[in-house]
């Protein structure tokens, strides 16, 4: 809207900031008890568009707060580098539709190695482009990790994730809470 001088009477907000706010206010009863004994490990993607390109490190902190609350601080492993310095996964910029699949996979191997280095079983990808790319990277390179949206983990943690809302969970979590 800035680029084209579009006048507007509304503000832009990110659901990530709201998740953090609602948890802090006690409105969203998320906790990590469900993962206390399972100890499944999670890492998180910093979507370029969300962090580096718009809201910056503050939203990356909100994101980590939410994730740690949901999975347990000890079960969260940050990839390196991270926050504004994180690498693009290669899902954005139209890449997924560009037809340059080989290049996209090569590009994405940087992200793949970051994720594998964490040893996490799950990568939370709070961006559609990231989710598609990171999921595709795991399939293409047979990496074995699972890619989930943050909403999935939040509902899982709260015990309200429906049977048909588990498409991206691995077998280790598929039955949790059912």
């Amino acid at each position, binding site marked *: *809207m800035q680029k*084209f001088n*579009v006048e*507007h*009477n*509304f*503000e*832009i*907000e*990110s*659901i*990530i900031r709201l998740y953090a706010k*609602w948890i802090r206010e006690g*409105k*969203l*009863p998320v906790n990590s008890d469900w993962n206390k004994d399972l100890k499944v490990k999670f890492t998180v993607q910093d979507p*370029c568009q*969300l962090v*580096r*390109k718009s809201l910056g490190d503050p939203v990356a902190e909100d994101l980590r707060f939410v994730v740690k609350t949901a999975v347990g601080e000890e079960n969260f492993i940050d990839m390196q580098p991270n926050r*504004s*310095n994180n*690498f*693009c996964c*290669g*899902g*954005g*910029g*139209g*890449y*997924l*539709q*560009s*037809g*340059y699949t080989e*290049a*996209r996979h*090569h*590009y*994405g*191997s940087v*992200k793949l190695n970051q994720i594998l280095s964490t040893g996490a079983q799950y990568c939370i*990808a*709070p*961006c*559609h482009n990231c*989710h*598609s790319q990171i999921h595709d990277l795991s399939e293409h390179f047979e990496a074995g990790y699972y890619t989930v*949206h*943050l*909403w*999935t983990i*939040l509902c899982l943690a*709260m015990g*309200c*994730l*429906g049977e*048909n*809302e588990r*498409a991206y969970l691995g077998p280790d979590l598929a039955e949790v809470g059912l």
Partner: protein
Amino acid sequence: MEENEVLELRDQKHEFRDKIKELLPDSNLELCLTCGTCASGCPATGLEGMDPRKFVRMLALGLYDEATSSPWVWMCSMCQRCIHACPMKVDIPQMVGLARQTWPREERPKGILGSCDMALRSDACSAMGASEEDFQFVVEDVVEEVRETQPGWENLQAPVNKEGAEYFLNQNSREPVTEPDEMVPLWKILHIVGADWTYGTKGWGAENYCMFLQDWEAWEHITRVKAKAVEDLGCKYWLNTE
């Protein structure tokens, strides 16, 4: 280029150089120190034998056509890590964007072009071509199923076109078209916190392939349709989801 070939510097007057000056008056190509911080942190380095530093240097040395016609400009995702790291803040992503524009529209990657054109077809702005009616139907269908089949969720709401709602929620086309049940967890979260939200049938598609295509007219049009949709419903926030 062969090892002993002399690099012929072209005439510095070129349409592309003017475009860069116009869009980026402060981003003087000569500011580049050739430090390589950009290239060393770029996942696209090496693709098509190109990297951000080389791209800038080719432009600085007048090799405009060679630089802009490289498919590398579609293999860069415009993630901004290069400018973030650059000590001189050379705006490489914007230059890549300008380079994308030098490609005749119909020669740009088919998938991106197709998605942009799909989105332009209706005020829904969906790159997968899902209409306003399609979207509303899917949302209402899914929420009804949840109410009927999930105990405790008999009152789940997924409002569409609710005037005056606080949040206008955007929605990527992927879920309603290919995996509608994935929309439900977020609805549940919004329900639990008592958020006052709505979808709009106009401007609901969250993606913007016209932006990736660098078709500025189309990009602006999509942006305006979406902004108007939020304003017409009188929502306070345009809420970006994951």
